[in-house]
């Protein structure tokens, strides 16, 4: 039996009231609660008050000119099944549909998925477990068990939607006491697993804006876990190829490869220009993409499973995903 620590709760119906309630020092936002509640049950924080988004009107999915606008409160189940998302951004629909399990996707929201706390095998444990090993940087101690001697926590952002949305150049709308600001999703994250979000404590993520592909595009999301369900990603790579013509015979004119589950920020693979001019129909393209990703993506022993195995399997899974795209499956 895991009990929650004591806290008070507010369930505002207006975004402004939620933001005002976040002025209480230590207050935390709770959306679906599927990340926050297990973490509180594990005593990773002790907020005096939770500000619930359950009654806020943040459940919209609409088209606004050349963008799709998704409310932070949209559940992952709704996102995975939404016709507009399936048609315009299949890699996002796929990632949302692979999060956790069906019952958790009915609760978990997109906002919560993007603001997901970073995870580490040494910290997502009961308090007694953590105490036995000795506290680390993320649990009030002075050392890191993953990188001995390390002074920065490298706990992993294990959100399935974050790498995909970064690969699609999404922006997020943050609503704070002074109003709204729009930032690229990539800029929401910073390289510190203890405080990995650049959002201010009294800012609410209210909306995600994703530009619709201006031309032909093929995109995929690669997720590998030990079990086919429930587990957080152990390998997580979003692929996006912009093409000069529809279909697998089109030549790559833009490519974006973004990995999750490595450290506290999604990691963008560099030098993707090397892929320009290649055609997905050419079997050598899958190898080229796999080599590029494999050379740059280096898993650590922060999430469960052997890091060496994960490292070796990244190019394998990426190659398969590109081959599947070329074969018309996604």
């Amino acid at each position, binding site marked *: 039996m895991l009990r*929650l620590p*004591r806290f008070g*709760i507010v369930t505002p119906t207006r975004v402004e009231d939620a933001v005002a309630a976040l002025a209480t020092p230590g207050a935390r936002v709770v959306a679906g*609660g599927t990340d926050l509640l297990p973490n509180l049950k594990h005593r990773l924080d002790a907020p005096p008050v939770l500000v619930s988004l359950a009654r806020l009107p943040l459940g919209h999915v609409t088209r606004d000119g050349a963008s799709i606008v998704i409310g932070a409160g949209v559940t992952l*189940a709704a996102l995975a099944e939404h016709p507009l998302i399936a048609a315009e951004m299949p890699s996002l629909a796929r990632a949302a549909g692979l999060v*956790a399990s069906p*019952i*958790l996707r009915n609760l978990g929201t997109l906002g919560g998925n993007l603001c997901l706390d970073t995870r580490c095998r040494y910290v997502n444990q009961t308090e007694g477990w953590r105490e036995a090993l000795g506290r680390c940087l993320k649990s009030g101690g002075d050392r890191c068990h993953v990188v001995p001697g390390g002074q920065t926590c490298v706990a992993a952002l294990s959100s399935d939607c974050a790498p995909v949305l970064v690969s699609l150049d999404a922006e997020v709308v943050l609503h704070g006491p002074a109003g709204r600001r729009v930032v690229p999703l990539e800029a929401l994250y910073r390289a510190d697993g203890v405080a990995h979000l650049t959002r201010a404590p009294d800012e609410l993520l209210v909306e995600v804006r994703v530009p619709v592909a201006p031309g032909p595009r093929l995109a995929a999301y690669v997720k590998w876990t030990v079990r*086919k369900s*429930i587990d957080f990603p152990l390998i997580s790579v979003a692929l996006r190829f912009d093409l000069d013509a529809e279909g697998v015979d089109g030549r790559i004119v833009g490519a974006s490869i973004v990995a999750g589950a490595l450290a506290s920020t999604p990691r963008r693979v560099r030098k993707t220009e090397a892929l320009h001019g290649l055609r997905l129909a050419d079997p050598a393209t899958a190898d080229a993409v796999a080599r590029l990703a494999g050379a740059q993506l280096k898993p650590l022993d922060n999430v469960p499973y052997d890091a060496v195995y994960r490292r070796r399997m990244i190019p394998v899974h990426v190659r398969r995903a590109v081959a599947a795209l070329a074969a018309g499956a996604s």
Partner: protein
Amino acid sequence: MDDVVLLRFTLNDAPVEVAAPAHWTLLEVLRYRLDQIGTKQGCDKGDCGACTVQLDGRAVPSCLVLAATVQGRDVRTVEGLRGPALHPLFDALDGAVAAQCGFCTPGIVMAADALLRKVGRPVTAAEVAEGLAGNLCRCTGYQKIVEAVVAASERSEARRG
């Protein structure tokens, strides 16, 4: 800010009114305030699905639902599938010997019932496997559960004619 919440919601078609501390989950309110112990408490952190109930018709793990957020909403537990006739899922699970220790069964039933209503036609084994992917069973190996849910959906269809 509330430390104690006074909740009014619909539980298995009947209105209930109950006070609970703000940090309690729906699972705790069901089991320790309302004596609805059909809903099981397993891992308490979203991993196992033993605590699955239906919230506004959708299957959710009640150990991760804050009680305060069910205000005014519709909650259904395994007790709420009781009716004048035996529910086709109970009958099929029994017939297939798909419950051994039975600890996972109430959660399986609630997830399966939500799935059958959503699909609205006889389901395939693959759809059941996907739909129940958040509900662990340590005894049966799943095969009999999947068969039973498929059978229940076919029986419901036959009954609807």
